[in-house]
């Protein structure tokens, strides 16, 4: 599996984490984490619950000071130039809600003022964002009257009002309806197309697979993989599978003659884990003929990022 490219010129690096370590009492939450995020890429940061994702993000955004290691943003040391470095960032924290006693417009204006934007700049940008995110009609309503999806859209508007060059998103689509999720993903893509570097923390492997140029997987506080999603998938060839649906349905115990490493039942499907999909398909067809079963569907599935993620994080608490 490829590791991070340490030879990348500093000018191409939007964010550099070097040997970050954070301890809480006797527990080491993050251990010697290093990686570079290149300018203009969407960088996925994945890990199971308690792996150290949020602690790492808090160190990268200047909320927590690491016990060891450094963070640089566009070549600026985060902790010695905290305010200047933060001016370049937009952050959507995992639990970072907006002020429910203010309207969407007021939340965006407040954020713009924190970033030193002028009145006219804030007015123009907030109107643009409110329209883009489908909030314009309700811009003067208090946020407490909004749905979860609308609140998250306001949160995103606040994070990008100053057009940051580096955007941190911690679980931005968690628990949202499909429309809000799509709107947010489209906004992220648009920001990225305009040159914004995106650091995306997510549990959603499919989202990471679809959006990210590279992904970093963290487990037990340490980086266990860092590469393009395609390269990570290929590193786990043995996890290819064939999914079959027979009629009438049969249980996994009846399909013992089909060539595979392991068979699982998932609803009405049988999932054959295999190192040779061709042999598995052939033997599944033979099994159906011999048993008088009709094949409703037969799908070969390549290695997935989810498989790679599971393999890399197996044994985590």
């Amino acid at each position, binding site marked *: 599996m490829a590791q991070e490219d340490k030879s990348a010129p500093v000018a191409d690096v939007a964010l550099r984490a070097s040997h970050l370590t954070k301890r809480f009492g006797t527990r080491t939450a993050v251990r010697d984490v290093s990686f570079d995020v290149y300018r203009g890429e969407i960088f996925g940061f994945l890990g199971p619950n308690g792996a150290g994702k949020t602690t790492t993000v808090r160190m990268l955004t200047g909320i927590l000071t690491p016990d060891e290691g450094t963070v640089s943003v566009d070549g600026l040391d985060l902790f010695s130039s905290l305010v200047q470095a*933060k001016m370049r960032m937009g952050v959507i*924290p995992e639990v970072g809600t907006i002020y429910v006693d*203010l309207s969407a417009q007021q939340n965006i204006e407040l954020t713009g003022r*924190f970033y030193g934007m002028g009145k006219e700049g804030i007015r123009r940008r907030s109107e643009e964002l409110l329209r883009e995110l489908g909030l314009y009609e309700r811009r003067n309503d208090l946020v407490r009257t909004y749905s979860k999806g609308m609140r998250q859209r306001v949160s995103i508007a606040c994070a990008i009002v100053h057009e940051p060059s580096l955007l941190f998103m911690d679980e931005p689509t968690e628990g949202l309806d499909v429309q809000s999720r799509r709107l947010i993903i489209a906004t992220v893509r648009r920001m990225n197309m305009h040159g914004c570097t995106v650091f995306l923390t997510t549990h959603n492997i499919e989202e990471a697979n679809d959006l990210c140029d590279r992904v970093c997987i963290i487990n037990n506080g340490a980086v266990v993989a860092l590469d393009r999603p395609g390269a990570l998938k290929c590193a786990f060839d043995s996890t290819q599978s064939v999914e079959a649906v027979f009629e009438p349905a049969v249980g996994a115990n009846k399909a013992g003659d089909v060539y595979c490493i392991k068979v699982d039942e998932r609803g009405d499907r049988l999932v054959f884990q295999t190192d040779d999909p061709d042999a598995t398909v052939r033997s599944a067809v033979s099994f159906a003929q011999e048993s008088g079963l009709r094949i409703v569907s037969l799908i070969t599935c390549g290695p997935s990022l989810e498989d790679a993620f599971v393999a890399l994080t197996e044994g985590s608490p």
Partner: protein
Amino acid sequence: MNLPPLIRGALVTADKDMRIYYRKAPVAIFGLLFPLFMFISFYIGRDLDIATFFPGFFAMSLFFTASSVGPLITPWEKQARTYERLLSYPVTILTLVLGDVVAGAVFGAVISALVLAVGLVGLGITITSIPLFAATIMAGCVCFASLGVLLASPSSGSPSNIMMISSLVRFPLIFISGIFVPIAELTGARRTVSYLSPLTYLVDACNGAMGKASQLHPAYNILILTGVSIVFIAAARTIQARMVMRGL
């Protein structure tokens, strides 16, 4: 206007606090109703010359109002899950502390101005030195707003706990600071204890500025209040930095 980031951040934080927290019930209860009830319970049924006690009551109202906003802000932000976002803005913890202090001080100054207006118009109170009195009000408002912010600093996202702790700290100060018993009448250990309370210096400064006898020169009182404010702000910054993860 292109302000330095520290000042800009503190002013925006203060504006945010004023818009959101001035309307919260605990601010009205602890900042307005408490000093009013304290005054009523002390005054009603007793044959007191209100003009004599006015500097003390004025100082008490300033003390309560200025220190009522600070204890609410950080616990409320942590409870509402807005604190982490606030920290991600281009601010430091010192910026947020200063912003909270400004919000508390402005609240204290506005309410105190109303109390003073009642005193000047309704009770014939006179002020002997307007510049000294203005400096006293400013120093007092900043000092007790800083106390309020300091009290909130160890918070973990439970406003009610912090309001209880802040009451436990603020009430004893009322009784040892020369409001109900003039400082000149205190002797021995009681007098020594009274000088441990920053409220004593505000009461003394108010006495001096309103033509009553004061123990220290008003300039000393103002200087002490300013020094105490710096200590409170520094302590609040240090505690908030250490406890930043509590309640996140």
